[in-house]
């Protein structure tokens, strides 16, 4: 049986959206898939050595808010300085309490399982991101390189 392949494009750089690519990549690797994740635009934040990912309730009516905040807090209140940091720390606390892995942990598990992480060279150049800020063991490449793998993949996801 040929090894199955999973190709993921990770485009988002917030704490909540960091989970799907790393959960799916690490799980697929555990199931025996060969996996590549291509990080582009804000997704590049997920490859930083020092992650500072946050979650915002703004423009996100589906986000369950603690203490019924969505009922008594107007949308403008959620835009107050410090609110994003507060919501982020509440979310992290909740995740820890529920035994949800941290992004650092899931990312390390991906690397350990030989998931190939590729940083979009164009975006790195566009935002003048120093490569020294990124973790080791990743590749820098473009769309063509991604298609070489994605073209033969069994599953291809855009996240």
């Amino acid at each position, binding site marked *: 049986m040929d090894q199955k392949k999973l190709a993921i494009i990770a485009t988002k750089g917030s704490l909540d959206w960091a989970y799907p690519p790393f959960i799916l990549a690490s*799980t697929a690797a*555990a*199931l025996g898939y060969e996996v590549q994740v291509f990080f582009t635009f804000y997704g590049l934040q997920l490859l930083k050595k020092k992650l500072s990912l946050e979650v915002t309730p703004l423009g996100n009516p589906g986000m369950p808010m603690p203490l019924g905040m969505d009922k008594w807090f107007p949308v403008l209140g959620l835009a107050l300085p410090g609110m994003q940091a507060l919501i982020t720390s509440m979310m992290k606390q909740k995740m820890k309490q529920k035994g949800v892995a941290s992004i650092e942990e899931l990312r390390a598990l991906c690397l350990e399982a030989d998931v190939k992480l590729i940083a979009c060279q164009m975006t790195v150049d566009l935002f003048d991101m120093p490569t020294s800020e990124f973790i080791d063991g990743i590749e820098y490449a473009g769309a063509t390189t991604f298609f070489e793998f994605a073209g033969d993949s069994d599953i291809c996801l855009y996240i």
Partner: protein
Amino acid sequence: MANFDQELDATGLNCPLPILRAKKTLSSMASGQILHVIATDPGSVKDFDAFAKQTGNTLLESKEEGGKFHFLIKKS
């Protein structure tokens, strides 16, 4: 609970950690050996079944006891 060669305590861990830890433990075991996993994540019941089907390892037993889920997996 039948005999097993190794035990993995995945209690308190949420998806996908029980599966990832199980996979890691299995890779250090020999073919035919049996891993006992204890988990509290209710989603792990279906996940271990699906894990076994997709990896070729055999799920010998899956049961709930005292609010915990127990799985016996035989390495292929």
